[in-house]
């Protein structure tokens, strides 16, 4: 093989890649000023910015840092394919930039968990530990499992299920869950702002406390949230704390909804549509913050576009990162 043969072969690469990188938007890191102005600006910056200077990354990158994130999920059985899309949403987000939040290192408070165990009526706990988890159990079969990477806590009560009585009103289940979480110190302010959701879980009820909105944008995905499962009679049998703390990272430019729509049509992002079908019609688009990992670490809280619609009579959802793809590096196996 020689160089010319390779260059010819490059000409034949997949159209998807030719399309995807056809437009690379210019990202002006700095405006050009006269050298006096620039020198003055450097001096001022040196005094003002010293406390917040951060080292350049390994590429010496200016402007936004490329975010190493896991590829969006390709969720097992719920992934289908749609051969064609139509856009029929009349109202959609128009933000041009949004803050990316960085997930703070997992914080595990043993004292908080010990107190919660006491309030929940657990006996003396024996503690075991492996590479990924800390497991605390009492002799009655109650347990607390802490996942070290994420700080997620799974509390399970070994309760005797009474005869299922008449279902209560959703507000009552919310009240039971709120009171218990407050009493045990497990309900922090970030999860108490929004009205919890209630749904059936087969034998009982689930009450879900979602994380507060950030910058007016809903926090969605799998984490962060607190999930309380209980019987129909209101006995709490498990609490799952998928708690995360976030700190502001950087503001990033967003692609437009229509650019995201084109990317969805090219097969990018994650599509959840059951069997799939021929024509998918997008009827709604929202911008949400998204964090999907429960037991593992997940580096950022990123804005994504969620497209919802119908395909051959069934609902579909498509999720795609809203950040300009130039700043996203999907790293398989991460997260």
């Amino acid at each position: 093989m020689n160089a010319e043969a390779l260059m010819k072969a490059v000409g034949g690469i997949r159209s998807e890649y030719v399309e995807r990188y056809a437009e690379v938007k210019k990202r002006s890191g700095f405006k050009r000023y006269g050298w006096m102005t620039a020198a003055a600006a450097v001096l001022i910056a040196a005094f003002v910015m010293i406390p917040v200077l951060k080292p350049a990354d390994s590429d010496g990158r200016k402007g936004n840092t490329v975010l190493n994130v896991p590829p969006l999920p390709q969720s097992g059985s719920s992934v289908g394919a749609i051969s064609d899309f139509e856009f029929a949403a009349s109202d959609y987000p128009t933000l041009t930039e949004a803050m990316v939040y960085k997930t703070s290192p997992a914080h595990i408070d043993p004292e908080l968990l010990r107190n919660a165990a006491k309030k929940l009526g657990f006996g003396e706990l024996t503690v075991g530990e492996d590479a990924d988890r800390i497991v605390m159990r009492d002799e009655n079969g109650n347990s607390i499992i802490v996942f070290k990477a994420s700080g997620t806590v799974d509390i399970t009560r070994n309760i005797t299920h009474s005869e299922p009585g008449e279902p209560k009103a959703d507000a009552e289940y919310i009240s039971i869950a709120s009171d218990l979480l407050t009493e045990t110190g497990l309900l922090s302010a970030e999860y108490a702002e929004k009205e919890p959701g209630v749904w059936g879980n087969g034998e009982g009820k689930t009450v879900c406390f979602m994380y507060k909105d950030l910058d007016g944008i809903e926090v969605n995905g799998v984490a962060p949230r607190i999930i309380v499962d209980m019987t129909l009679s209101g006995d709490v049998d498990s609490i799952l704390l998928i708690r995360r703390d976030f700190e502001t990272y950087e503001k990033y430019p967003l692609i437009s909804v229509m650019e995201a729509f084109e990317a969805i049509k090219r097969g990018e992002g994650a599509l959840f549509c059951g069997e799939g079908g021929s024509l998918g019609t997008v009827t709604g688009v929202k911008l949400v913050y998204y964090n999907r990992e429960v037991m593992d670490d997940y580096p950022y809280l990123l804005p994504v576009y969620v497209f919802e619609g119908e395909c051959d009579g069934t609902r579909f959802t498509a999720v795609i990162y809203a950040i300009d793809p130039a700043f996203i590096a999907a790293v398989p196996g991460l997260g």
Partner: protein
Amino acid sequence: MFENARKEASIPVDDSEIVGLFFSRSEEAIKELLSKYGGVMTKVSLNALGDKRDAEECVNDACLGVWNAIPPKRPKKLRSFVLRIVRNISINRWYSRNAQRRGGNYEICIDEIAELIPSAGSVEDEVNEALLTKYLNEFLDGENDLNRLLFVRRFWYMDSYEDLAEAVGMKPGAVRTRLTRVKAKLMEHLKGKGVEV
């Protein structure tokens, strides 16, 4: 509703409409094609050849090529279809120039790749172009988005390092270093496939 959404988002004429114009043999087709993709077509050709006048001629030839190809072809991805034509025409133009005035980024790209390949290769070493493209696609599939972007923009679009650096907000040196690593990985990938490099 779609029409309203499109207007609000200032999206130009849809590709399928442009293809429709070619099918109806309307001269508006060329106008709309150039209006939508003329900039990037010129950029690809200019990158390859480094000469504005040659690039303009190649874009005109490409428009004629598209006119002759559609119909019967009905490309699903009009932009990449058109860009492939303009790229091929530009590369053919580059080969038709005499050796003294070849220039352009196409030459630089070839030299850059040649640095990684110790021998000039022989007829026996030649690997089927389609197979090589398949291996390239496999390689790109496994790379992260930034590496893919840099590789495709450098060797398909033949962007200069300065343009690439400005586009992705990195220093030219950092782009060069990153691409050197990507190229080295590519060579390993090709060797793993049994390609003589």
